[in-house]
């Protein structure tokens, strides 16, 4: 208990130092930088009354971004997790799929935007899915790699025991591999969502629709003269990113009781 209180006090002190340094910087050195108080007031105003030019509140922009991330990252999970499990348990499949995934992995999600626009117009006749696709690319590889490591890290002894009891490949996968790899999978989802959140900000800045926190921050910059709104938008991006991460840490603890 005392330890917990001590930690909390330290964290609060750290927060005070951060906010204090920001305030000092804004007041003494960079007048263009809004003070924490000004940014907080703007954050509140944008949350309640909204912003007149784009006609939306900060949270309506946030909902648009979160929606794109959930759809893109959800699709990535559906593909990456089974693929990672399969690669982790089958040497042949692993070698076969290695070239494709390893060649695409180092390409940053935003570098996909031009080609994705061309391909989606060619295949579907619309560029609408591009933003979600960029999120998919961002979330895919962390999910794949973590699942792969999880599937490889399964204790061979456990698999042997299951085999001794004549468990089928599918039964081994379901009862031994998946539960044992689950902590890794959840880490993959958590890291993937983080990258997805970064990717959607970049994708929204490229334009198209006029919604999302990434677009909001860029639009405030392009119109100019409203740095507090930019900082408030960044604060919303940070808070939601933090919230998603904490939720998954929590989910990980609840699901993986035996870890």
């Amino acid at each position: 208990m005392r330890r917990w209180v001590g930690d909390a006090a330290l964290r609060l002190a750290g927060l005070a130092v951060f906010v204090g340094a920001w305030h000092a910087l804004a007041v003494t050195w960079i007048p263009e930088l809004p003070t924490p108080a000004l940014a907080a007031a703007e954050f509140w105003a944008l949350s309640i009354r909204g912003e007149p030019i784009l006609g939306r509140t900060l949270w309506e922009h946030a909902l648009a971004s979160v929606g794109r991330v959930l759809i893109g990252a959800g699709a990535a999970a559906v593909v990456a997790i089974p693929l990672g499990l399969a690669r982790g348990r089958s040497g042949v499949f692993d070698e076969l799929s290695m070239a494709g995934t390893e060649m695409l992995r180092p390409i940053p999600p935003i570098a996909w935007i031009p080609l994705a626009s061309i391909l989606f117009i060619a295949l579907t006749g619309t560029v609408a899915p591009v933003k979600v696709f960029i999120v998919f690319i961002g979330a895919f590889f962390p999910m794949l790699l973590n699942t792969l490591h999880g599937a490889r890290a399964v204790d061979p002894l456990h698999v042997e025991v299951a085999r001794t009891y004549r468990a089928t490949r599918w039964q081994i996968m379901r009862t031994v591999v998946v539960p044992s790899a689950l902590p890794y999978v959840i880490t993959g989802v958590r890291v993937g969502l983080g990258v997805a959140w970064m990717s959607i900000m970049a994708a929204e800045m490229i334009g198209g629709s006029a919604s999302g926190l990434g677009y909001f921050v860029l639009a405030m910059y392009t119109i100019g003269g409203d740095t507090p709104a930019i900082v408030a938008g960044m604060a919303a991006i940070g808070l939601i990113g933090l919230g998603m991460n904490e939720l998954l840490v929590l989910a990980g603890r609840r699901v993986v009781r035996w870890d």
Partner: protein
Amino acid sequence: MMRARHLTMLAAAAALALAVALAGCARSTQSSTSVEVAVLTAPDMLKQLESGDIDGFVAWEPFPATAVSGGYGTVLELSGEIWPDHPCCVLAVAPSVESTAVQAALADAHIRATTWINDPANRAKLLDYAAEFTGKPQEVVEAALKDIRYDDAPNVQGLKDYYAQLKQYQLLKKTPQELGFDTEEAFFDAFIDEAPTELAKKPVLYASQLPATTKVRITYIAGDIHHLAYFVAKKEGLYDKVGLAPGKNLIEVAPFPNGAAIMEAFKNGQIDAAYLGGAPATLKRINDDTKITVIAGVNDLGSALVVGAKSGIAAPEQLAGRTVAVPGPGTVQDVLLRRLLADLGLNYQLKQ
């Protein structure tokens, strides 16, 4: 037990995703009295008009002419039909160009180039220059040129009208008082300086009066046919005539993609003079207090509302429920669309 918790979590996640998706769908349902406005770069407007992602766009030449010549777009309204005599591009200088002689010399070369462009005797050569400058075929630039009025006089009234609309749409973040001017009138007197063009029109050459240290870094928007006067002045040796030698005391800075980027370059002290839209010049002069001065007009008009050839839109009223793209909030094209929709009684709604 564990599995049940699993399923609950999965179900919760799925429900959340579904709720968000549904919320998105509900939002995108259009009322029949509004137009959905997308924000796109001009090259993207062309691609998305062709693909059918958007039903129309408001852009500056040569983009409307390109869509028409590609067979996937038709001009529904010329910008002058929506907003008569509306302002477009200007020639502006940074505070670094202090010398009246340098300002007059820049205006002089610009006026000579504008006169050259408007002289029918130069028509054939003009088309060559326009095609070279924009990288577009001759038939496209020929169509584009029809919609543009090249005029070296600053469109003061037009920019004041534009300012009033920025104020109306709440796009202005600062008042003239916050910028150090007592009235809007005083702000405009400082922002648009007609002295350089008046000096330039006198039969005096400022070449001999240029300070020995003169070095003007000048730029424009890449491929923007409105800025043709710069290219003509360079090609026709008009800068040399006023004592500004390209490569010596007139340094061309690589062109920028849009006016907002040029205003950024002005703010960072990277350039001394530029051809740019009067809209970003005014908007950023006020919102970012980027201290530039307009010393000449470049052109009026020269934008158009283009609709997809397959959109079935034959009259502006039919834009209801459709998607139209503009280059960004507060651009001249954005103001044109807002004006048109207000006249038609349609709502302007940014795309979700």
